[in-house]
């Protein structure tokens, strides 16, 4: 942190880090609540409002989806198959750009899922970008790099390696 930054700027940076961390936890919490709900109408507007209008959701397994309507279709497809999910978001590392209007963050995620009636282990990293618009942080680009997505009773050692992002 350059020493010429004012106390106000340094404080704003810490507040922004806290806000981005909270945003990612809200993303996980609303996704899990939506996927687990018996009468699901998900993704709902509350969840989609976490994203910028031009947001991108991308992974090595699910492909690239750009724009709020594309995201809505992607998540609706999950909702049709997934009846239980818990996204543990772990070890956040968040950087705020010097402009104060953009941020990036890295997390590990450990997920327990029921998809098509089968229990699944999923391990991934998130490498996400965020943007601040109208004083509110929004998700700009999710990059989910899935390391394994394994049937519970098979485990991850028996699974063929997944393609990796950027490979």
């Amino acid at each position, binding site marked *: 942190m350059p020493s010429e930054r004012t106390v106000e700027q340094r404080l704003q940076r810490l507040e922004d880090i806290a806000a981005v961390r909270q945003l990612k936890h*809200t993303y996980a919490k609303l996704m899990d609540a939506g996927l687990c709900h018996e009468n699901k109408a998900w993704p709902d507007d509350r969840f989609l409002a976490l994203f910028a209008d031009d947001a991108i959701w991308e992974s090595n397994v699910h492909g690239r989806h750009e724009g709020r309507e594309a995201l809505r279709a992607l998540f609706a497809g999950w909702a049709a198959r997934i009846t239980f999910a818990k996204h543990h978001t772990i070890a956040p590392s968040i950087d705020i750009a010097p402009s104060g209007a953009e941020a990036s963050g890295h997390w590990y995620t450990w997920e327990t899922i029921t998809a098509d009636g089968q229990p699944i282990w999923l391990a991934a990293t998130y490498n996400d970008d965020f943007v601040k618009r109208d004083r509110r942080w929004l998700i700009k680009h999710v990059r989910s790099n899935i390391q394994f997505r394994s049937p519970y009773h098979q485990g991850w050692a028996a699974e063929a390696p997944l393609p990796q992002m950027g490979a």
Partner: protein
Amino acid sequence: MSIEDRIRTLEEIEAVRRVLAAVGATCDAPYDGAAFAGHFTEDGVMDLMEMGVYTGRAAIQEFIDGMRARVPFTMHYWDGYAIDVDGAEATATWYGFETPNLNGTAHLGGLTHDATLKKIEGCWMVTRLGQQLHFMTPYDKGWVRQRVTDQTA
């Protein structure tokens, strides 16, 4: 909000995070019911839903100390904290993953938690701790074959 108030809010969020970490550690084996209950207000409530509601430090301590006989081992992996502080009151939600030995069988537990806290004489104290159990399954079964093992038997 003044700079002093904004800094205080960030400091209090970290203070609440530390209290919750201590709460989690003291309900790991070998269990420290006195230390665990000491983080609650005198009239604090621990609502474990299907595992009962415990009101007051004495009842909370008795339940935690009783874990030694019922659950000889567990660890609480708590993550994903979302903490809001408003003056001397705070709310928090987080995720939990547990590895208990129940009835001689290794289990895996998936939970979410919530809490309300009050700052009293400079210390954050839990007024209510809630738990939602999503699965507690023998490791060789998984949450589809057996979602929950009865922990109250």
